[in-house]
């Protein structure tokens, strides 16, 4: 594994396009019926933006996030992450993109239950080939205010704390952008606000964040709102 030198603090920049989708389509076959989840989406997100994608359930907003996050492959169209066309990349190259360029925060946290907070974050930094992985992991946990909970396992933490561990895990590799799918969906309002505070602070420091939510209040706290309905961008 090649080692990289990174700093966990996010780099400040602006203007440059970090994520772009061109005529993105995705269809599933469910038995004999073909469901068109995305019917041609174009988006462009600049470095340093905090964008929320909203829409009713089944609108295709999570599908869009998964496609731009290289977690799923599109039926047609292009995705460019940090200027690199990832839509036709081989699996091994996609793993590299997921590992180094994109940070993920899921609704259900998805932490490894048998590792402590610190070990969960450290695993990510090791996968990304970062030097001093443990120190960097500790730094990322401090950034989300979890310096006291580093040696606790997920089962010993509250939902909000687990989500902050997940955010630290996404941050530790200094990603080009952070994708969050309903990050507050499993949390109460107060804890949800706390997570939003963390996101806003990170965004102020320069991190590009794309968040999927169906909560309009949360969306209102972001810099730009993209509305998705029936697999298309509303108003586009």
């Amino acid at each position, binding site marked *: 594994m090649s080692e990289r030198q990174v700093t966990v603090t996010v780099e400040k920049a602006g203007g440059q396009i970090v994520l772009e989708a061109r005529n993105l389509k995705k269809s599933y076959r469910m038995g004999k019926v073909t469901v068109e989840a995305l019917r041609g989406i174009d988006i462009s997100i600049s470095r340093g933006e905090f964008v929320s994608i909203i829409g009713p359930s089944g609108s295709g907003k999570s599908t869009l996030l*998964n496609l731009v996050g290289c*977690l*799923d*492959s599109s039926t047609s169209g292009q995705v460019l992450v940090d200027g690199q066309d990832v839509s036709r990349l081989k*699996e*091994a190259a996609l*793993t*590299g993109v*997921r*590992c*180094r360029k994109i940070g*993920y925060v*899921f609704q259900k946290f*998805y932490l*490894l*239950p*048998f*590792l402590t907070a610190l*070990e969960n974050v450290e*695993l*990510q930094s090791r*996968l*990304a080939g970062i030097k001093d992985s443990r120190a960097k992991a500790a730094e990322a946990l401090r950034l989300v205010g979890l310096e006291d909970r580093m040696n606790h396992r997920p089962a010993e933490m509250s939902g909000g704390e687990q989500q902050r561990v997940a955010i630290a*895990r996404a941050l530790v*590799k200094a990603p080009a952008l952070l994708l969050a799918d309903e990050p507050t969906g499993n949390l109460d309002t107060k804890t949800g606000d706390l997570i939003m505070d963390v996101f806003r602070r990170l965004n102020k420091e320069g991190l590009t964040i794309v968040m999927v939510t169906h909560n309009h209040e949360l969306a209102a706290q972001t810099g730009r709102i993209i509305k998705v309905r029936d697999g298309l961008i509303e108003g586009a």
Partner: protein
Amino acid sequence: MLDIAFKNMWQRKTRTGLTVVAISVCIMLFLVLSTATSSMDRMFTDSKDLLNGQMYVKTPSTQAGNALEFPPVSSSLTAEKASQLMNVSGIDPARSAPLLLVPQAPSLFQSGPPQVIAVGIPEGHEKAYYSDTAFETGKGTLNGKNDVILGSYAANTYYKVRVGDTLNLQNRNLTVVGIAKPTGSILVDGMVLTPLSTAQEIFSRPGVSTVILTAPSDDQVDSLAASVRGQFPELEVMTQKDVGETLNSMASMTHTFMGMIDLTMLVVAGVVTLMVMFMSVSERTKEFGMLRAIGASRSKILTLVLEESVIVCLLGSIIGILISFIVMKLMFGAAFASVDVIFRAVIFMTLIGIAAGLIPAYKSSKIQPLEAIRYE
């Protein structure tokens, strides 16, 4: 990823423990059975070699199954017939003798020789039975009516007596006068040699079981056997060749039996290991999906599973080997197993374990991270 593998296994203690137990039990059974089979082979070979130039004269078996009986404990000859046999011309009288054989401990193996056998033999003819066996303590001759000579297994393991001790055989007190060195032959190692008349009294048997006849030289064995067969058509003669065949067919029956158990056990072991490993890896599809999502390559995930499988299989193997040594110590009085057998067992289980882990891991690492995460 080795530390992650250890942490995962430690966290899932019950499952790891059960897998290790399943593997160790399989290894243990395999080792004990394989060792029992090979030690039985060795005992049969050694017993056969001891019969150089000798033959047993016995009554025909009444049951077909007993045709393979060796030594011929269920044969029965009258004292008169025995003395007629001892007077046949062309025998070495010092190494020929009528024998009364009474098993004292059952055979370890199906239709094998008894582990301990009481042998009544006329004084002065002892060598007819134990041949040139050397003695550890005491002497190899019976002088008194209540003298007893023991084989090493009978003395050291079965009765746990020493020269000079009293041995109670069916309420008759006998004095141990000699203990033979171990020979590897089950017939000598398990012998309880007493004067014929004493054995006849103890077991209330007026006659004898068989007469062992020795030709003066090896090349006279066949002609002696032919002459005895001619003079006593109602009796059967078992030469070394016949005994060899008998022992071989006993051994092959036992081989088939043990082989079937061994094979069944290996199949069960394989299936159990496959199931446990398959289940434990399959239920981690979600976890693998998460690892893939945060950038773990497929080979990283396969390495993780491979490491876990190897650790579990090796741990199970080590424990299985240790248990098998304890079991063998209890069963045979000594712990032994050839390196070859151990090696085969460990390699087999490890290969099964790796295959059982890698197949589902390969499958779940192949699906899209998103599908794997959503997998319930």
